[in-house]
């Protein structure tokens, strides 16, 4: 190491760098204009987080200047490169950039106000929107106010770096907790149905936290985070420790705890939330299935919804009295084994022709298959058998002890869904560490070599397809019984994509990761046709999905809760470094002869 880099090298990117200020400020301004122009601000503004001062809309809007401030003052520490010291110039620069962003947003408000004709092309640009954007102060004061607020928020974002790490973490946890408590209003309200004092204290009558309760939540969460440092990250790392047996034990404990919670919680939830939880369960089932195909065997299947459709339609045909051609009117239980068989056959039918394809080609062909199934169901040829666009109605629920459980008795149905999720999770857990699972792993790593060391790759691929198809048909059979009818529009290509996003965002290759992905995406944001906890997200769901996916790919490609292996795979370099350091230690101990 001979070079000692002068601070010059880093000051170029920090401090009062005009170019950077302009770049970030204008980008942030554009972002704020975008959020406003697509109607997100107005839609999210209806959801109050802290009554009456903060709505979801403003939170999203002002997260941009905050981010700018954070980026302006951030120091990327590189080994061997001197990092420039923090100066007040950072805060000033951040404030200028944030102010610029706010100013751009304010100008936009003036523009919209001055040119009502714009509404013809961008219907969201209404006078009401201008009012929301300018905080109801008129465009002139609004411009000043937005600029000042932007600057202040950005300065806050920059100032965050000054806090000692422990306090910074506590503040960040506290702020996140406030948002979480506000967002989960419906859940907390339901959970404390027996003890109304808590929700009554927390939430204002028209929704959202009160200012007082927001402060209390902030202090409590912040205090906990400050005095119990590192508990939460350690929980995550506990599931990822390298030692195999320890990891296994930790996962087992986590699984038991989660199971207990999951068993108890639906008791306290109302119909709406149990419906939501059921949707999460359905997508989790499909996520687990796709996780085997994509995460374990490495076969990118973009037409996975086809198997969901096969499961749902087979159930519908076998159980509904209104099935147009063939209506044996079986019970759900009688139909279920046949549904699994149908799904397995579908898995083989889809798997066989694509067995020689790899990577992109496989993805495109399966994408096609997914659509073919839906279009066939709609076609004149199959309409007489499956009802075409009329779908199949009057699908009975699941008979348990003389009564039928379906969408109308969602509080029981949710348990049924969770039971099947448990079965699916168990199956994928057991398969992962078995001869078949190892064959899948080999297939994912290098197909040619897998074949050369004696893995029958054709068989292994078909096994993956069939297992995935069967797990998806679990979801299909449940879906039919829950909704009571099936239509082709429930099986659009979007469903395949959403399941894949669930798997990727959650953490490919990891059962718990897929569960987290389903909870976050389906539970909070909502599925393709199902509302989530944040119903306001409805029309922007796909935008947020996309943004989240891009962010995850850039920042955390291994997902929220990755499998240990996937994380190590995506961070090979760091891992190699660690291993190299480890080896240095090991060598000293064992001192093997030779290299």
């Amino acid at each position, binding site marked *: 190491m001979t070079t000692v880099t002068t601070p010059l090298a880093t000051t170029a990117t920090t401090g009062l760098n005009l170019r950077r200020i302009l770049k970030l400020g204008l980008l942030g301004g554009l972002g704020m204009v975008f959020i406003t122009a697509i109607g997100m601000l107005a839609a999210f503004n209806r959801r109050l987080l802290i009554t009456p001062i903060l709505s979801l809309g403003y939170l999203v809007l002002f997260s941009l200047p905050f981010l700018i401030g954070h980026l302006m003052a951030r120091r990327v520490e590189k080994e061997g490169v001197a990092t420039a010291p923090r100066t007040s110039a950072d805060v000033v620069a951040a404030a200028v950039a944030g102010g610029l962003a706010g100013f751009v947003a304010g100008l936009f408000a003036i523009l919209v106000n001055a040119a009502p004709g714009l509404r013809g092309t961008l219907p969201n640009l209404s006078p009401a929107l201008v009012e929301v954007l300018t905080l109801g102060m008129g465009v002139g004061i609004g411009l000043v106010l937005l600029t000042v607020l932007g600057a202040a928020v950005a300065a806050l974002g920059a100032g965050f770096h000054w806090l000692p790490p422990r306090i910074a973490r506590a503040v960040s946890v506290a702020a996140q907790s406030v948002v979480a408590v506000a967002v989960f209003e419906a859940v907390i309200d339901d959970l404390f149905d027996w003890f109304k004092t808590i929700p009554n204290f927390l939430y204002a009558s028209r929704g959202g936290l009160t200012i007082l309760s927001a402060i209390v939540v902030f202090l409590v969460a912040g205090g906990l985070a400050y005095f119990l440092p590192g508990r939460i990250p350690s929980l995550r790392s506990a599931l990822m420790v390298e030692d195999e047996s320890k990891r296994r034990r930790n996962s087992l404990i986590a699984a038991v705890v989660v199971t207990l919670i999951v068993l108890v919680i639906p008791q306290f939830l109302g119909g709406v939330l149990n419906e939501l939880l059921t949707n999460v369960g359905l997508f989790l089932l499909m996520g687990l299935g796709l996780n085997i195909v994509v995460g374990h065997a490495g076969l990118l299947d973009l037409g996975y919804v086809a198997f969901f459709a096969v499961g749902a339609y087979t159930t519908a045909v076998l159980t509904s009295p209104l099935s147009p051609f063939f209506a044996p009117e079986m019970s759900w239980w009688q139909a279920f084994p046949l549904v699994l068989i149908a799904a397995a056959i579908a898995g083989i039918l889809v798997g066989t022709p694509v067995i020689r394809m790899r990577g992109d080609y496989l993805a495109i062909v399966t994408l096609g298959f997914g659509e073919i199934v839906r279009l066939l169901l709609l076609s004149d040829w199959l309409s007489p058998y499956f009802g075409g666009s009329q779908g199949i109605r009057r699908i009975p629920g699941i008979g348990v002890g003389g009564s039928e459980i379906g969408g109308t008795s969602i509080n029981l149905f949710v348990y049924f869904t969770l039971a099947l999720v448990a079965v699916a999770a168990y199956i994928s857990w057991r*398969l992962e560490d078995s*001869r078949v699972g190892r064959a899948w792993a080999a297939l994912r790593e290098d197909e040619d*070599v897998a074949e050369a060391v004696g893995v029958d*790759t054709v068989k292994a691929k078909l096994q993956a397809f069939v297992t995935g198809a069967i797990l998806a048909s679990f979801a299909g059979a449940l879906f039919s019984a829950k909704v009571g009818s099936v239509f082709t529009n429930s099986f659009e290509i979007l469903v395949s994509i959403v399941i894949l996003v669930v798997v990727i965002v959650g953490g490919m290759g990891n059962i718990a990761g897929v569960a987290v992905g389903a909870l976050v995406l389906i539970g909070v944001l909502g599925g393709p046709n199902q509302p989530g906890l944040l119903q306001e997200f409805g029309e922007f769901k796909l935008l947020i999905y996309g943004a989240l996916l891009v962010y995850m790919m850039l920042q955390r490609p291994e997902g929220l809760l990755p499998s240990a292996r996937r994380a190590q795979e995506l961070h090979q370099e760091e891992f190699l470094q660690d291993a190299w350091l480890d080896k240095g230690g090991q060598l000293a101990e064992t001192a093997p002869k030779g290299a």
Partner: protein
Amino acid sequence: MALLETKGLKKSFGGLQAIGGVDFTIDEGEIVSVIGPNGAGKTSFFNVISGLFPPDEGRIIFEGVDIAGHAPSQITKAGIARTFQNVRLFPNLTVLENVKVGQHCRTHRGMFGAIFQTPAFRKEEREIEEKAKEILSFFGSRLVGYRFDQPAFVLSYANRRRLEIARAMATEPTLLLLDEPTAGMNPRETVELTELIGKLRSEKGFTVVMIEHDMRVVGEVSDRVVVLDHGVKIAEGSYQHVSTNEHVIEAYLGRPAEEKQA
């Protein structure tokens, strides 16, 4: 009867004839080296035998059965295992898992056993694990202990080569095809591996065909040397015999200029 016999083996890629009718035999318990200049068709010869590419013409008779055109996994199951010139492990699987995958074709328990954790499944898993450890111990202390659970990509180059041999051994072959086993190793590691190749026969009873560029290794362990050039066998015999053969010298060094004109 020969363990492996190829007759008139041919393989072309487009207009390029990689192998142009090679007749080759190896008896059980032999160590045969295949040498030749770059591009002579040595690796193609291995690829065709191990089923990665089916031959255009000719027969590959292994233990009396013609295996030409069989899938690689079937050929591995029949008892031919190989390593690759540019080490091809499963980099993100652990050392132990790499060897366990090798046992795939010798084990049988399927998904049913795994899901219900049948006693037969558990017994087999235990045996797979024990066997994998036993195979790895063949390489001394290099791939054991804390190495078991390390992903293969952290291994040093020499260890990757060893692990690849271990994975090939796990398929319980009768014939082992080693593609440049000492490439990229330092002299010390080369000496060690040369010994090990001898042990593969004396202790484990494998028949070995290896492609090798290091003539000291070739001279030391091979019973017989086969020289390929432009996809054709140009010489065969003991190392001494081959190393003085004028065709071989010519293939490696070229012909003197005046002779070429003549």
